[in-house]
């Protein structure tokens, strides 16, 4: 490597596990508001609730390895006037307890915050049993349930604060796979709003959670090639910000969605449904990046690459979509 090449290598970007700010903010909120309680399924460690338990031993309810009971108990605590944060590894919290999430939380409209820890393919080599890539498809089918996907430390804190300020049925993806912080000046998370992180006029890149920084990096690559990419953060997958999606379809010539999830019912499917209802001039090509299968063995990074969830692949998908446009 030459001296010039070395100088052109950017310093490594620091990345973070969002379970840490989640737990810190939950403790902050519990200090301020006696209604805040945590419920978990033996996941005190993996949900990063050790410090919470030390400070509020009575307010951490561990139901053991019993996810149906976990969500039901959360609903009962909400009925009793508490603001429960029900924490568990995302695949089990959503999959094993799906009917409880549907009936006890969403249909009953009891203000429970479901905290899906280590979502997506965070558990890499542990395989599809431990991946939570179906959660978007499953939960988007439930009316009245917010789906929140914070992309960095500050957004994770905001998601917790929002849940205490305005308790309502919600699912938060709390990422374990380390991600960088978003650029300074990123707007505050607002319920039901897709955020514009970067302006652009040729193509729109929509990411959420772990894929958002990759979409931003892809936009840098595209800019170097003279392509102006808008980057949207679908931090609220539900309720869906239809207006921002429609504007992207009308103001740019193609859309790429990137999600650490199965594509059958996630952000790509949501965006497609919106666009298919628009006038023909706005029905732009869409590239949907995500999973189509049960993942083979591999690290999280390896699997993200396999499913095209890298800055290179997102940039290439944008160019391909523009070509089709």
């Amino acid at each position: 490597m030459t001296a010039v090449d070395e100088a052109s290598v950017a310093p490594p970007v620091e990345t973070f596990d969002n379970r840490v700010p989640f737990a810190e903010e939950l403790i902050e909120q519990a200090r301020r508001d006696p209604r805040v309680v945590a419920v978990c399924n033996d996941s005190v460690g993996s949900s990063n609730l050790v410090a919470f338990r030390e400070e509020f031993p009575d307010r951490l309810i561990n139901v053991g390895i019993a996810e149906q009971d976990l969500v039901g108990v959360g609903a009962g605590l909400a009925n009793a006037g508490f603001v429960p944060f029900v924490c568990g590894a995302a695949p089990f919290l959503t999959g094993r307890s799906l009917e409880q999430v549907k009936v006890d939380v969403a249909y009953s409209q009891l203000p429970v915050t479901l905290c899906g820890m280590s979502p997506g393919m965070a558990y890499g080599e542990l395989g599809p049993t431990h991946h939570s890539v179906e959660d978007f498809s499953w939960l988007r089918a439930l009316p009245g349930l917010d789906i929140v996907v914070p992309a960095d430390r500050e957004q994770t804190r905001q998601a917790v604060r929002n849940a205490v300020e305005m308790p309502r049925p919600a699912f938060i993806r709390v990422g374990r796979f380390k991600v960088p912080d978003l650029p300074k000046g990123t707007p505050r998370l607002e319920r039901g709003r897709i955020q514009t992180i970067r302006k652009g006029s040729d193509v729109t890149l929509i990411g959420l959670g772990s894929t958002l920084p990759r979409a931003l990096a892809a936009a840098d690559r595209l800019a170097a090639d003279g392509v102006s990419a808008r980057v949207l953060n679908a931090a609220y997958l539900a309720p869906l910000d239809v207006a921002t999606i429609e504007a992207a379809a009308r103001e740019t010539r193609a859309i790429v969605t990137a999600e650490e999830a199965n594509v059958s019912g996630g952000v790509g499917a949501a965006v497609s449904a919106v666009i298919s209802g628009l006038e023909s001039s706005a029905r732009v090509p869409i590239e949907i990046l995500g999973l189509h299968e049960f993942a083979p063995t591999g690290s999280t990074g390896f699997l993200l690459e396999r499913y095209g969830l890298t800055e290179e692949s997102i940039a290439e998908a944008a160019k391909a979509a523009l070509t089709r446009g």
Partner: protein
Amino acid sequence: MLHADPERVSAWRRLRAMVADATPTERDALLHEQATWIRRSVVSMIDSARQGHIGGDFSVTDILATLYFAVLDIDPGRPEWPERDRYIQSKGHAAASLYSTLARCGFFPPEELDTFMAPLSPLNGHPNRNEIPGVETNTGPLGHGLPVAVGTAIGAKLAGRRSRTFVALGDGEMQEGSNWEALMAGAHHHLDNLTAIIDRNRLQQGARTEDTNALDPLDEKLAAFNWEVRVVDGHDYAQLLNAFGPSTTGRPVAVVANTIKGHGVSFIEDRVEWHHKVPDADQVRAALEELV
């Protein structure tokens, strides 16, 4: 969302006072009168909707009458009162008996019962708390009520409230694994403010429980899960009242209420086909003749 019927609420208050002051014989007569009203209402509702679950409605009716007219610390005029006792009907399919009971207490006007399962009626085939005051949580799929009840009971303790939680389950429903998760949690958390009532009518939709996936010895199983178990006649008001008293051991209470599915109408009693059979006109007349 339905709203309280002030006249019915006043009538319910007077009735509660009468029940509280009555001799055991008078009390039983008053509770029987309420149960009969509920059962007659169920017959009319199912007749008019042409669907429903009459067998399970009738087996749980005396439990409902005892709870709402003699036990629960509630105010039908203020269904969201935080200090209230909670009653959760896990066997949501017995909705007609629950709705009739709630209407009789004044949670909403009894005329609404005529809309049972009609298009856009708040009175769905399974209860919805967002439409009906007095419904604590939505039920229908089995095995949901007890976990939620464990949560309300933990909540009452955390909040330092004296309020109690009662939950009624069908016996067939005890085949759901979620209930056994919740039984463990209830005992582990020493929920002496929680009473689970198992409507032990020994029939499920398709056959006898013991011929399907046997539950016996149910009392011993519940005791082995560290619950204080009380086995009673689920149609005997004195026994039910006794069973609904507070825990004496610091453990949650499980009441195994031995009932007869379809209790009150001879040709419906203990017959598997009456899980959700709808009576024809002659059967409606015959049922109402027996329900006095």
